[in-house]
């Protein structure tokens, strides 16, 4: 299986080549990949149904405990099945939708890569592997939303989706790290068995917050829901696949997967059920304000994701069963509806439902598919959506905390969703036919096959929900209710959930009838909406740009002394801190100094200080010379004759050079204010003091054996020289000396070039009026 997934990425990369061979049939050929994967998964069904947890071991980075092990239980199986089956249908569908599009190969590359990443995500057992696939889905999603990269809105939406999900991904990474520390394992199979340990660990709250941030951003939970409707800038097959059936469910998958490990605490229950219920209501409420069919569906997806999160939060056995049914039902009807939306767009040339009408005469099959799928969305019998909705209401009624609020939010979401379903299924197909930008025809078979199959599945599972009993049982076992007895039925008799359904039906139909007036009324809330979370995102982005600009102007300000001050103060702060607090300063040495040595040291200090304060350039150079010659004297006094000779030579040359050149330079000017000088003096004294301290602490420490003993012993026998320093330079470390010669040669060439250039420029300028000269 791992090979199949990794090989899938190779197939994705080969899409352009396949397109070269098969032309317009390429999507059909590539659909064989997910189709065969789903066939393989079907083969595993007996084992999964019996409650077995398949672990396909595969070491990846053994030293770091990172494995590519795949974990297949009911939950993973359900998700993998949805990904491969809907993936195959979407590929077939996109072949028709993007027929003749010049970027079809690129589309196929990215969507196949996405498919494999998603598959890896739901099958991974290792947290690191899961995270890698998680980020891969964010990146491929970015590429798919921005597929029409010439469109500014698409690029913006793609970036927004990326920032929100990857930002959450960062939090998730931290959460995973804490999870692994707290549970002492990177394996999900292990972690789900250590629930008690995790829930009582001190890191539980921070890790829960981080993991939830990751899951909520990915699954577009309130207040991060805004990126999902904007992601509708993607081609419709992408919306159908990523932004309804699969990727946005990754967050929900993660929550379900971690439910046995982290679920059940107050923090988990209240956060998830409240955020989920809020997301439900927000999604449904925002949906009915839109007339763009894709936006309508996108917001209803937000609603569905909220429902799923809420059900996981409630976490009772009934709620988990409702979760699985709702998940399956949503993937089936939403995939179908998005593909229908793509058909409408493709055939009529518009996405606005108010601009369509009476299409059932020209597109009867599409109308029928839309009708069935929308019935499931509305939660009406005899479809799977109805079963899910009944179970959802039943779970909400069993909540302890915040029951009235959650029930109110869930009920609002339910009746608004019903209105959305009616808008999508009735508005375009009934009523008076309208003029559309394109003359509509019935869609080609390849485009109808996918939605029709999904709608048929919705209907048949709805009529015989008992078929799903083993699947739901196996999945629920993976979420944390092992051994649950699942008996699904369409009809439960007259009870409170049914009454709630009826009430939502009536209210929903009422909302549909007065939709146009409702929309006009809601449009007045526009100013309020403009302050929603999306405005916060925009403000954050703008703030980031201005902070970046500000700090670049602050730090990269082009003043070399500011860089120096910052660097030095950091150095003094860090090293000084370590020296004072991490190290005991001990100074014990006898100060054995002869008088003449102290005089030499005093001369050095006097020279250096004088060089700083002299106002005449000649005096400064002379002071430097005094310092340089005192250094040479020090070398003489302390057994370094070679150094003394070199220093004397270099010092003489330096003084000559400075005298020659400096007098062609401007006089010393006082450019800084006294306060600036005081600041510089403070920085300089701090650094100088630090170096003195450092040197003293080095001197009082224990001496390690010299590494030069070998050189001292072998200078004569091996190097045939009596001056050990010379032997080191030309023999033991000859390469260093060679490098030094190169440096000197380069400097000489540079100096020569600059002087030559000067001469030529001078000749050229001789004709021009003489430049301003300063002969100080």
């Amino acid at each position, binding site marked *: 299986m791992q090979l199949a997934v990794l090989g899938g990425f190779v197939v994705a990369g080969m899409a352009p080549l396949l397109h070269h061979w098969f032309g317009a049939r390429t999507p059909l050929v590539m659909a064989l990949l997910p189709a065969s994967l789903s066939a393989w998964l079907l083969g595993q069904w007996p084992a999964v149904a019996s409650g077995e947890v398949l672990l396909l071991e595969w070491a990846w980075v053994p030293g770091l405990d990172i494995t590519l092990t795949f974990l297949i239980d009911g939950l993973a199986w359900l998700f993998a099945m949805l990904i491969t089956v809907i993936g195959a249908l979407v590929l077939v569908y996109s072949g028709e939708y993007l027929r003749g599009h010049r970027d079809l190969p690129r589309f196929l590359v990215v969507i196949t890569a996405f498919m494999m990443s998603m598959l890896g995500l739901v099958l991974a057992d290792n947290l690191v592997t899961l995270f890698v696939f998680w980020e891969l889905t964010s990146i491929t999603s970015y590429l798919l939303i921005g597929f029409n990269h010439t469109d500014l809105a698409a690029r913006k939406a793609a970036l927004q989706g990326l920032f929100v999900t990857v930002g959450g991904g960062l939090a998730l990474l931290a959460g995973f790290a804490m999870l692994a520390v707290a549970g002492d394992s990177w394996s999900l199979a292990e972690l789900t068995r250590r629930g008690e340990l995790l829930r009582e660990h001190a890191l539980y709250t921070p890790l829960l917050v981080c993991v939830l941030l990751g899951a909520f951003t990915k699954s577009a939970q309130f207040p991060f829901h805004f990126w999902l409707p904007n992601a509708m800038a993607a081609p419709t097959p992408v919306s159908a696949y990523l932004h309804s059936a699969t990727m946005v469910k990754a967050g929900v998958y993660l929550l379900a997967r971690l439910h046995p490990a982290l679920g059940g605490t107050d923090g988990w229950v209240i956060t998830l059920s409240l955020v989920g219920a809020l997301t439900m209501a927000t999604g449904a409420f925002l949906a009915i304000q839109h007339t763009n069919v894709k936006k309508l569906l996108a917001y209803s997806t937000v609603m569905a994701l909220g429902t799923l999160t809420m059900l996981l939060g409630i976490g009772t056995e009934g709620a988990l069963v409702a979760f699985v049914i709702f998940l399956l039902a949503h993937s089936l009807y939403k995939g179908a509806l998005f593909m229908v939306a793509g058909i409408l767009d493709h055939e009529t040339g518009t996405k606005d439902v108010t601009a369509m009408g009476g299409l059932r005469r020209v597109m009867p099959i599409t109308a029928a598919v839309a009708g069935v799928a929308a019935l499931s969305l509305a939660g009406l019998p005899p479809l799977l959506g109805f079963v899910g909705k009944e179970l959802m209401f039943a779970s909400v009624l069993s909540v302890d905390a915040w029951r009235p609020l959650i029930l109110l939010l869930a009920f609002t979401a339910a009746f608004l969703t019903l209105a959305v379903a009616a808008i999508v299924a009735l508005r375009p197909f009934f009523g008076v036919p309208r003029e559309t930008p394109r003359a509509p025809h019935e869609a080609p078979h390849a485009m109808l096959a996918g939605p029709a199959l999904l709608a048929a599945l919705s209907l048949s599972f709805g009529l015989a929900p008992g078929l799903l009993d083993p699947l739901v049982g196996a999945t629920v076992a993976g979420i944390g209710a092992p051994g649950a007895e699942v008996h699904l039925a369409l009809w439960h008799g007259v009870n409170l959930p049914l009454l709630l359904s009826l009430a939502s039906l009536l209210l929903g139909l009422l909302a549909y009838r007065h939709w146009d007036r409702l929309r006009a009324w809601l449009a007045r809330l526009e100013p309020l909406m403009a302050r929603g979370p999306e405005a916060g995102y925009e403000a954050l982005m703008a703030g980031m740009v201005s902070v970046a600009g500000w700090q670049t102007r602050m730090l990269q300000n*082009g*003043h*070399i*002394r500011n860089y120096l001050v910052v660097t*030095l103060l950091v150095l003094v702060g860090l090293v000084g801190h370590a020296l004072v607090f991490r190290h005991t300063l001990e100074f014990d*040495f006898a100060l054995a100094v002869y008088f003449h040595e102290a005089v030499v*040291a005093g001369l050095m*200090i006097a020279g*250096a*200080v004088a*060089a*700083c304060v002299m106002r005449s*350039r000649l005096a400064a150079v002379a002071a*430097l010379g005094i*310092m340089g010659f005192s250094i040479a004297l*020090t070398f003489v006094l*302390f*057994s*370094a004759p070679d*150094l003394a000779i*070199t*220093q004397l030579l*270099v010092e003489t040359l330096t003084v000559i*050079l400075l005298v020659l050149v*400096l007098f*062609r*330079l*401007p006089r010393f*000017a006082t*450019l*800084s204010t006294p306060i600036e000088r005081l600041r*510089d003096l403070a*920085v*300089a004294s701090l*650094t*100088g*003091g630090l*170096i003195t301290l450092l*040197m*003293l602490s080095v*001197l009082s420490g224990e*001496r390690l054996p010299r590494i*030069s003993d070998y*050189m*001292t*012993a072998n200078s004569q026998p091996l190097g045939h*020289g*009596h001056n*050990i*320093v010379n032997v*080191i330079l030309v023999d033991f470390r000859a390469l*260093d000396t060679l490098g*030094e010669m190169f*440096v000197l040669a380069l400097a*000489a060439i*540079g*100096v020569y070039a600059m*002087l030559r250039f*000067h001469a030529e*420029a001078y000749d050229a300028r001789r004709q021009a009026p003489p430049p301003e000269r300063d002969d100080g």
Partner: protein
Amino acid sequence: MEPLMAITIGVLFAAAIYMMLRRSIVKLVIGLMLLSNAANLLIFATAGMVRGAPPLVPQGLTAPEGPVADPLPQALVLTAIVIAFGVLSFAVVLVRRAWEIVRADDLDKMKDTDT
């Protein structure tokens, strides 16, 4: 001697940094010279300062008699002195060229790349 040298070197570093923080580019060059001298002394003194025992092998012997000063830091400092001279001469000529072209000694006025 080393504690005294530690203080001397600290003063040298402080002087070098003070000069490098000036706006005048000529003072920057002086700061550079002070800095290289201070660094050389630091290496030399940290290795331990020994009086009257240069690292030489007397004629006719294969190794020095008794302990001598550590020759390795001396070799390193020797290289450093020469390199510092190369850097200095390059810097001095560069500053001179810059002055000829820009006619400004103030680093704050030399922030553009296209004068």
